[in-house]
């Protein structure tokens, strides 16, 4: 049996609208510090979370809001946390990078790569205490160079742990292009540990759902871990207020100032090397802008296209989701 695309669409839309509301509160200064969104990753979260049951666990990275929203955590509790309230889901202690829900066996961390070992531990506990239950680790392509994550791949294979390792590959680690600092190929790398590795279009929720099903079934049968490489694009850049995407003159000057100052400075690299550095900075900015304005790989758009035949039903879902989010925001702010 295939996935229920309507359900998946609803989940993805809930997450999108929720994070749009978060963006608004962040812009208004109601949320402090950094804010990493999962906008662009919704199909990956939805296609995987749809397979989870009671007793399954999730280890999330710094971009953990969508899986929590889809797992059924109370939205206003998440918002209260982001607003820094004592009655938020983590009593105002955690914030968006450190979200925990014990009932949902879900933990997040801002330490890149740490979802691997934590998920391996969740899976070990499942092996002992809840046979048939599994753990999922969500992380980015940048994390694929973190030793502890790679070590946890080996651990999971050696101990046949029921884990699904999910790499959300947007090809960036903040302002670094992953390919620039990564050797070999990520699928091959995962395979070399001795687990199946599947590559999927992370904008296609059905593809994610199908691949996840294989990995989840394998884990539930106690056959060990699976690695998923899901390609995606995140239009908002690394986090809200991401410097290359700001439109103000002030930030332009902030970015260009040091370059103009350094380019002609006496003593340093050869003119050729300086031009090469300048070239790579410009191409990174160019690439960031292209991703911001390309709608092509938006997962919501993708699934909506599949469902567009039933306009009325789409409208109904959209209205319901809008209302749910609006009410959650109102409750959180009241």
């Amino acid at each position, binding site marked *: 049996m295939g996935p229920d695309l309507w359900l998946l669409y609803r989940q993805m839309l809930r997450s999108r609208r929720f994070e749009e509301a978060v963006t608004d509160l*962040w*812009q*208004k*200064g109601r949320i*402090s*510090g*950094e*804010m990493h969104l999962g906008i662009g990753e919704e199909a990956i979260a939805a296609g995987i979370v749809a397979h989870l049951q009671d007793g399954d666990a999730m280890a999330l990275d710094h971009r953990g809001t969508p899986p929590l929203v889809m797992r059924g955590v109370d939205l206003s509790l998440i918002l209260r*946390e982001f607003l*820094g*309230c*004592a009655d938020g889901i*983590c009593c*105002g*202690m*955690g*914030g968006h*990078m*450190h979200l925990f829900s014990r009932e949902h066996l879900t933990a997040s*961390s*801002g*330490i*890149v*790569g740490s979802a691997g070992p934590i998920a391996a531990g969740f899976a070990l506990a499942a092996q002992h205490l809840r046979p048939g239950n599994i753990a999922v680790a969500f992380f980015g392509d940048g*994390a694929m*160079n*973190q*030793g*502890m994550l790679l070590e946890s791949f080996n651990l999971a294979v050696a101990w046949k742990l029921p884990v699904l390792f999910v790499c959300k590959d947007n090809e960036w*680690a*903040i*302002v*670094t292009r992953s390919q620039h*600092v*990564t050797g070999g190929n990520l699928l091959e790398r995962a395979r070399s540990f001795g687990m199946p590795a599947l590559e999927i279009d992370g904008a296609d929720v059905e593809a994610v759902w199908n691949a996840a099903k294989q990995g989840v079934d394998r884990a539930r049968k106690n056959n060990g871990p699976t690695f998923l490489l899901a390609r995606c694009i995140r239009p908002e850049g690394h*986090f*809200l*207020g*991401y*410097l290359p995407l*700001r439109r*103000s003159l*002030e*930030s332009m000057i*902030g*970015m260009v100032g*040091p370059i103009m*100052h*350094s*380019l002609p*400075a006496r*003593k*340093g*690299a050869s003119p050729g*090397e*300086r031009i090469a*550095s300048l070239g*790579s*900075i410009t191409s*990174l900015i160019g690439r960031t802008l292209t991703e911001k304005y390309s709608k092509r790989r938006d997962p919501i758009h993708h699934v909506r296209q599949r469902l567009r035949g039933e306009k009325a039903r789409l409208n109904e879902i959209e209205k319901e989701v809008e209302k749910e989010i609006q009410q959650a925001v109102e409750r959180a702010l009241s």
Partner: protein
Amino acid sequence: MKTMGFADAIDDALAQAMVDDSRVVVFGEDVHGLRTGLFVRFGEKRVRPAPISEAAFVGAAVGAAMAGLRPVVEVMMVDFIGVAVDALLNHAAKVEAFSGGKWKVPMVVRAPCGGGYGDGGQHEQSLWGWLAHIPGLTVVVPSNPADAGGLMLSAIEHEGPVVYLEHKLLASNMLDFLGSGGRKTVQYDVPAEGTCGSVPDGWMPIPLGKAAILHEGKDITLVSVAVGVHRCLEASAILKKKRISAGVLDLRTVSPLDKEALCQAVSRSGRLLVVDEDYRDFGLSGELAAVVLEAGIPMRYGRVCTEETIPYCREFEHQILPSTGRIVDAAIKLMDR
């Protein structure tokens, strides 16, 4: 003299060192974006972006330093140093001792530190006392642009491993990147003199292990580093109105500690109040008390520190981090006793 921001001063001194010594190289995550000026001026070979592999690239800095380079390796925040602790604890800090003093590790680990902008307890720690606990590591924590540049130069010139911590409330580029994100709707309690100030026309090294007396005081000595220094200066001004003369000592280097300056100041005032944004227990604040007592100096003692995991919520965060109000209260209490 000219005026410069805290972060610019560090990069400027670093640039001077890179011009003077071709063995100085910079690497770390996103350095081409965080240090664009250096990247463009010195090229990618000397300012090299690294994968998210702290254990490998901090470890590589140790090897590179042993084999002749002078790396300035960046860890994006000191909190993330956890991933690379082995390189510092068991390698950088040990080589000189293990080799009978014959082999040294001239490297600098540069890391932003500190809180006050609502980013939570995994992104706002200070950890200077925790690192200084390890014999063989030098730990530098400047509080203003002039010191920041001069100390960076000495850190690079030093023959052993140095952890160089820049507080994010002082480095305005970091605060903008991580805290405000270009928003005008958020405010942080940023000490103005720390973020921008006069600096020399050409950088000269400031000796490691030398504290600076920023304010003389005969009743009580306030001792701190980084943002804490500015909170102490504010507290001292408030205490003055209450007829309490509070001196302020900026340690500038946590390890090696300027024991002489500390003991001199406390022997004059007879009261020591340590203001430490790092964790209270088993750390810098207790160490300062031990140093003074070991020297046989009688004193009254108090401390204002971070006592637990730093909360994300701004209001709780403010209560937990050392604030001017907490310093004033603690100082008054010490006067009463």
